């Protein structure tokens, strides 16, 4: 029996449980794909998965190395262009955007471009890819990432993908679609949302083995803690089974 689980598995399970049935999710590389497949297999049979390179609702049975590979159009209902799927997103068809990130701030702004100075970076990261588009255009954006003081920062070194920018109203003022923005952040410590008024990051749930102390010790900004914080169930056997089935090589889900 599968009784132990890794932090990554807990994160993927937590993320999978956020997604809703009969909705469309636009997924980024890695954990978002696994979590979406888990959700689709177990909870949301009508969850529709879209990839930025043009794949719409493929019959995914494996994790893909690339969001543009053959897997992303495998028995899809449509294999089209980036323009098409990004236009769908801009038109309002994407319920959930699902991204990874290197750095995030209290307003959910994401950095995947550089650590350090842009001109002479300490670490050069790949840049936006489709992340900015997904974060700009989806109704609700979910981010899944590792949490520590260097990643949960007061100000991201570079805003690649807009969260709530400088706070309430600033998305709309800059021309981004209204009623959009960060929705959940899933880390190895817990699940976060954003305060409805201040748009600042707010703890929503912990895991069986994480504590409030972990939350604050692994963030450079203060995270709002409401009175009631849920504690999520550990990954179920079914969740773990699906994760390992779709990532048998252990690219993301550790083999044991």
């Amino acid at each position, binding site marked *: 029996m599968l009784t132990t689980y890794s932090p990554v598995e807990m994160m993927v399970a937590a993320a999978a449980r956020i997604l809703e049935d009969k909705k469309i999710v636009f997924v980024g590389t890695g954990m978002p794909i696994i979590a979406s497949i888990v959700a689709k297999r177990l909870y949301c049979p009508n969850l529709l998965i879209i990839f930025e*390179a043009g794949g719409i609702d493929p019959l995914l049975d494996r994790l893909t190395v*690339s969001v*543009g590979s053959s897997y992303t159009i495998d028995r899809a209902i449509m294999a089209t*262009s980036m323009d098409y799927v990004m236009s769908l997103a801009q038109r309002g068809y994407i319920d959930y955007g699902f991204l990874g990130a290197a750095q995030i701030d209290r307003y959910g702004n994401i950095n995947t471009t550089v650590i350090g100075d842009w001109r002479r970076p300490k670490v050069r990261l790949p840049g936006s890819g*489709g992340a900015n588009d997904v974060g700009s255009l989806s109704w609700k954006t979910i981010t899944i990432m590792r949490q520590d003081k260097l990643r949960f920062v007061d100000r991201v070194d570079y805003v690649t993908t807009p969260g709530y920018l400088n706070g309430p109203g600033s998305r709309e003022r800059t021309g981004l679609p209204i009623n959009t923005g960060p929705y959940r952040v899933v880390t190895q410590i817990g699940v976060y949302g954003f305060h409805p008024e201040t748009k600042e990051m707010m703890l929503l749930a912990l895991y069986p083995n994480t504590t409030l102390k972990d939350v604050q010790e692994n963030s450079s900004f203060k995270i709002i803690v409401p009175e009631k914080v849920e504690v999520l169930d550990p990954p179920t056997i079914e969740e773990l089974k699906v994760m390992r089935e779709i990532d048998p090589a252990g690219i993301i889900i550790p083999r044991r």
Partner: protein
Amino acid sequence: MDPDEAREWVRKNKQREYISKLMSPSEAVQKFIKDSSYVAFGGFGHVRVSIVIIHEIIRQNVKNLIYAAKTAVHDIDLLIAAGCVSRVEVAYAFGHELRGLSPAGRRAVETGEVEVVSEWSNAAFEWRFKAAAMGLPFLPARVIAGTDTFKKSSSKIIRDPFSNKPIVLIPACYPDVAVIHVHRADIYGNAQILGHTIMDFELARAAKRLIITTEEVVPTEEIRRQPYQTTIPFFLVDAVVEQPFGSHPGNMPYIYAFDEEHFAEYLSLTKTREGTLQYLQKYIYGVEDFWGYLERIGGYRKLKYLMDLEKKRTEPIYPWVE
């Protein structure tokens, strides 16, 4: 380049005649890719990407390329590793998606050998090509607003005169040369892509010069049998190069899968400058052409395995997983 200059360029330079444009990779590069050219590759960085032309650029030691890195992966990384690129416009680069960051690309940016000159999102880059494809100075968009990526791009914001809300204007982008790898094309350049077209439908019309590399050359009658499958009409095309497995080690939908063993070797060797040279020597400088490379990566046996993998007749392996 404003739309009128772009029109004038088309009028003077694009061939409307049915003449064979079939040539070798080496001819195509010699003719159309110069030092300091602004280049863009079709496909998705390691999916349906013209590695055959990448190799030839490296073999001919073209220098100071400016690279349109709209999801650039193995394409740009090889060129950077070989010292062919000096400036990059980035939507996605220096990464290998799930395989992790690209050691060669990262090193080049972090040491300043390669300069990032602007930042974009994928949609923004796609819409730059689309603006150019449509003969327009810009396309409006609702992405990149409010971010540093907007600041590092050359986009503008205006007030939309209909809704009175702010709207981003993404400027058109006209690469000097685009290189697009396709499933089939005729000798004139009529090209058909199966599967997703990614940005290529737009890029083909945005670029000033267009090199098509194709898994196979087919008779024009075959194109005309399903004209609704045509992605690129011949009059956009300046060169046609036939090269089966021309996207290796990349994936070619419906034909062959990623060669993850090869990627593992590449990513491991490029961790050092010595390893990088060793890779380039073994697989590019040290072979005469792409056919030679295909032998060196494992020949027909490997290619057959990659075709079986694409058909899911065997399970993939990921030797780069730690």
